[in-house]
């Protein structure tokens, strides 16, 4: 039983365990331990790259390993901040629902890792579908009217997306028939990318459109983004961090892999259309739509939900532009955005906890204003996270956006106009928050409170972002550029 | 070596004449105007007697004034006196010819105007601020017009200094042209505004509504007032000799050879006389303008400056 299979199955086993035993607090500690082990394992997987497992359906290639390690790290830090969340919210929900909550966290982690390591496109689809179901149950946990409405919306839109993705998977299988015949070979990503030229181009393009819509729903690209803001705003806090960190990346990486198939076929003259225009259209649509949706928001988690849509739109746009440097920039952007966004949600949860509980209701901006009065360090960390989203230099996103804009200028100069406009408007909408969030007079009766050690993870995330953006070690640079080259 | 010595002597003579005759010029203009109006008018050396009287009075310093009260008169006087030495009078190629750059002269005018305005604001009472505000308004348009006229001279003569331009106009074959005519009218308008003569400001009158230069000096007395009034006289002398050298350059002496000095002196005094008569006639023929009519008057001057530049291009008289 090879290592990758172990990494994938451990969270599911833990989920079953967490689902039935342990008080909420003990469940949280168990969750932390499992996440720690899983993260360790994801690092160990780096030692034996491309090792097949579970009958060849699970294979950790370099892209999968990198994002697997990232998800492991985010899950670990979320589990750490989950401890404070559970201690604060202990009496609000029944022990049974806490067990369901921790089980769902583990299922989501397991599904994400399966999504990254899966080589079989059917298995990839199952992983994403399982993550959707887990997230739907998670979102509906708080049992408020708006949580139910968010879950219903999530289920309907997610379900439609999953159906389209399944249809796309089947059409890919059909497109692979003439070249690779029936059986498992026609569904393994590595084999498909090896024979990309011989696939039936026409069916491959049809499959890519459906897959783009299926996984685009999970990646929250423009017309398919409806579920994300409500799911972020209504679900229990740490779940939002997991949702934002892990699920979007699974879908974006899946789109990137299928884009490679289509691009290779189109380059080899196999009759397929170029994937660029599709991705660029969805990317720009989500960037421009969210740029103007950010302005009216009163609830902070819904606001940062829209910002997640915007950044996955930017990543899709970078993949649409194509070329090694653009793919490199897109991957770097996803890496940095995941770290910043999960740090932000952890800091947000902590600050809501300081202002009377992290229930979905009290994440409003007017409720969180004047954070400096509550806790200086947490306020500055929260301000740093929000500022990191704007893309102005001290934030890491400047490096990746710089690369993306420079690639757009060189390949499609005209597209740089909407891209630039979208980036500027959304950055202004984000930067507008920092003033009131930190420096406004706080609501009445707010006193200085200790924030506990949990916020160290936020600082760790931001430090990692700075290192990755402005001083990336050479080994990592070589690895990322080789991945981008392979997926070119 | 001899010419250098002669040039120094000429410069000293020039300085003595400019500084000495300035109050006389004021007296002459006053006397001529009174005669035109049918009055006998004060004796022509009356300004000297006024200055002498003021020097011997003890100045009354207002208690709300700051220590700089005593400095502004000296700054104003020094600036105007420096310009007086720079602008050539009866002879060209003086020692200070190389420094008599148009922009420096405009700068020194601005410095003396700033000193007078600050003197007005010194005591913080109503009249000074009102006068300073009006002077600021007039200075905006006059400086713009002056710069455009300087552009025209620069393009015709190609030399940035007053001395070079005068020599070019005098001995170069410029001859009378339409653009120089416009430039002369614009220069006259600016001169009238700068020296505060009738259409813009009433030098003799004390009517509060009409005061511009008078209002800024209300709080001054004694020797400080004398300095300011002497500076005002110098300003009139400078503008007369500036217009004389630039627009009527014939008959000017060369500082180098002493033989041409008498002719130069005579022509210079004759020109001053002609300009005094012209100013007197102009003053009695027009009434004082309302404060907000002056910007249009100066606007016309600016427009004439622009036209002279454009006509210059049309006439193709461009050299260099």
């Amino acid at each position, binding site marked *: 039983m090879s290592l990758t299979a172990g990494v994938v199955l451990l969270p599911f086993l833990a989920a079953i365990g967490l689902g039935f035993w342990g008080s909420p607090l003990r469940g949280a500690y168990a969750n932390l331990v499992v996440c720690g082990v899983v993260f360790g394992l994801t690092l160990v997987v780096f030692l034996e790259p491309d090792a097949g497992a579970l009958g060849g359906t699970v294979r950790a290639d370099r892209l999968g390993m990198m994002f697997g390690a990232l998800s492991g790290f985010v899950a670990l830090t979320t589990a750490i901040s989950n401890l404070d969340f559970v201690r604060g919210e202990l009496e609000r929900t029944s022990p049974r629902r806490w067990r369901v909550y921790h089980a769902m966290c583990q299922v989501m982690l397991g599904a994400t890792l399966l999504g990254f390591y899966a080589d079989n496109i*059917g298995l990839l689809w199952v992983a994403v579908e399982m993550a959707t179901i887990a997230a739907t149950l998670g979102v509906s946990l708080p049992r408020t009217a708006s949580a139910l409405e968010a879950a219903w919306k999530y289920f309907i839109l997610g*379900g439609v997306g*999953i159906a389209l993705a*399944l249809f796309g998977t089947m059409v890919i299988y*059909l497109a692979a*028939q003439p070249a690779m*015949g029936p059986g*498992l070979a026609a569904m393994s990503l590595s084999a498909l990318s090896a024979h990309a030229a011989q696939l039936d181009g026409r069916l491959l393009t049809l499959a890519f459109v459906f897959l783009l819509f299926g996984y685009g729903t999970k990646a929250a690209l423009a017309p398919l983004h409806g579920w994300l803001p409500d799911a972020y705003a209504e679900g229990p806090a740490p779940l939002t961090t997991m949702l934002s960190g892990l699920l979007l990346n699974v879908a974006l990486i899946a789109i990137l892999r299928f884009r490679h198939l289509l691009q290779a076929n189109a380059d080899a003259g196999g009759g397929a259309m170029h994937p660029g225009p599709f991705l660029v259209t969805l990317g720009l649509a989500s960037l421009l739509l969210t740029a103007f949706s950010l302005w009216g928001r009163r609830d902070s988690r819904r606001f940062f939900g829209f910002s997640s849509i915007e950044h996955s739109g930017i990543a899709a746009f970078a993949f649409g532009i194509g070329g090694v440097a653009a793919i490199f920039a897109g991957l770097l952007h996803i890496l940095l955005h995941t770290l910043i966004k999960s740090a932000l949600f952890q800091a947000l949860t902590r600050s809501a906890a300081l202002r009377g509980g992290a229930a979905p209701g009290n994440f409003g901006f007017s409720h969180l204003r004047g954070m400096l009065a509550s806790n200086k360090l947490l306020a500055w960390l929260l301000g740093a996270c929000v500022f990191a989203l704007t893309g102005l230099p001290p934030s890491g996103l400047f490096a990746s956006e710089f690369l993306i804009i420079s690639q757009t200028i060189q390949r499609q100069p005209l597209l740089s106009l909407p891209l630039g406009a979208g980036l500027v408007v959304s950055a202004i909408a984000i930067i507008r928050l920092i003033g009131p969030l930190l420096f406004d007079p706080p609501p009445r009766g707010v006193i200085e409170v200790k924030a506990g050690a949990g916020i160290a993870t936020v600082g760790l995330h931001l430090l990692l972002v700075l290192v990755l953006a402005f001083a990336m070690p050479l080994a990592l640079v070589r690895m990322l550029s080789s991945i981008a080259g392979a997926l070119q | 070596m001899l010419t250098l010595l002669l040039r120094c002597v000429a410069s000293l003579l020039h300085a003595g004449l400019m500084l000495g005759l300035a109050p006389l010029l004021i007296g002459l203009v006053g006397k001529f105007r009174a005669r035109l109006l049918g009055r006998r008018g004060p004796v022509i050396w009356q300004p000297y007697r006024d200055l002498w009287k003021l020097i011997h009075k003890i100045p009354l310093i207002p208690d709300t004034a700051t220590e700089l009260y005593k400095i502004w008169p000296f700054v104003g006087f020094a600036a105007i006196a420096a310009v007086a030495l720079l602008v050539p009078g009866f002879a060209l190629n003086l020692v200070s010819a190389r420094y008599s750059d148009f922009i420096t002269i405009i700068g020194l005018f601005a410095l003396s105007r700033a000193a007078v305005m600050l003197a007005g604001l010194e005591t913080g009472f109503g009249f000074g601020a009102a006068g300073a505000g009006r002077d600021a308004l007039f200075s905006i348009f006059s400086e713009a017009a002056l710069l455009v006229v300087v552009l025209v001279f620069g393009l015709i003569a190609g030399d940035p200094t007053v001395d070079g331009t005068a020599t070019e106009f005098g001995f170069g074959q410029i001859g009378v042209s339409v653009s120089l005519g416009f430039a002369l009218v614009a220069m006259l308008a600016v001169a009238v505004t700068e020296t505060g003569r009738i259409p813009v400001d009433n030098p003799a009158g004390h009517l509060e509504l009409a005061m511009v230069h008078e209002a800024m000096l209300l709080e001054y007395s004694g020797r400080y007032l004398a300095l300011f009034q002497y500076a005002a006289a110098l300003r009139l002398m400078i503008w007369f000799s500036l217009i004389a050298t630039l627009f009527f350059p014939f008959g000017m002496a060369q500082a180098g050879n002493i033989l041409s000095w008498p002719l130069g002196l005579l022509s210079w005094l004759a020109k001053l006389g002609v300009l005094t008569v012209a100013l007197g006639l102009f003053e009695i023929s027009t009434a004082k303008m309302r404060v907000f009519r002056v910007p249009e008057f100066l606007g016309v001057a600016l427009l004439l400056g622009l036209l002279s530049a454009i006509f210059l291009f049309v006439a193709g008289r461009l050299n260099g």
Partner: protein
Amino acid sequence: MMPVNSLSHALAGLILLCAFALLSQRRLAAMITLIQAEALVLSLAAFIQGYAQNADALYLTGIITFAIKGVLLPMALRRITRRFNLIRAVETVMPVGFSMIIGVGLIGIAVMVVLPSAASAATQTREDLAIALSVVLLGLLVMTTRRNALSQVIGFLSTENGLVLAAIGMPGMPFVAELSVALLVLLALLVVGVFVFQLREHFEDLDLSGIEAIERRGR
């Protein structure tokens, strides 16, 4: 005996007919019977495909489809409609005729996209794929033109039938596909069930307008 693939082709056509008929229904009960018929035909097609490709997985899919979508789900849906006395008509967003025209357009698009201009070897599977794609698109159209939550779920189920039809049409698709389809049906039912009872608790009826009211307040 008619050649097997032309028979499965005919059954696929029948499923397409049911999906198209679904568009025109106004009453919930009629929609439930139509979806039941569609499921039954689908399970029959699964059995035939299983016999043709002698892959036993298809038999399993047929049984699951018959058991859950053919019998259990319509029964549950009818019980729900009876409990909330939802016999009354289902308001549609646009006139039925108009949605029928759009349905025809969708089928045209599906055919244009799937069938290549040059006929390739596996034209038979291409036609099945075109029909499956049409059923999926019609299912989506039903979902987007109904205001009632339950009718949206029925549209979703029709889409899934299209997917299963495409899956059984694929020659030699490995076993994993069948299991995942079954998993989907099972979990979908579970989740829908949970929701329906919760919704009843909170909104006293199944109409989506309640939810839309919350949304319109806007956040």
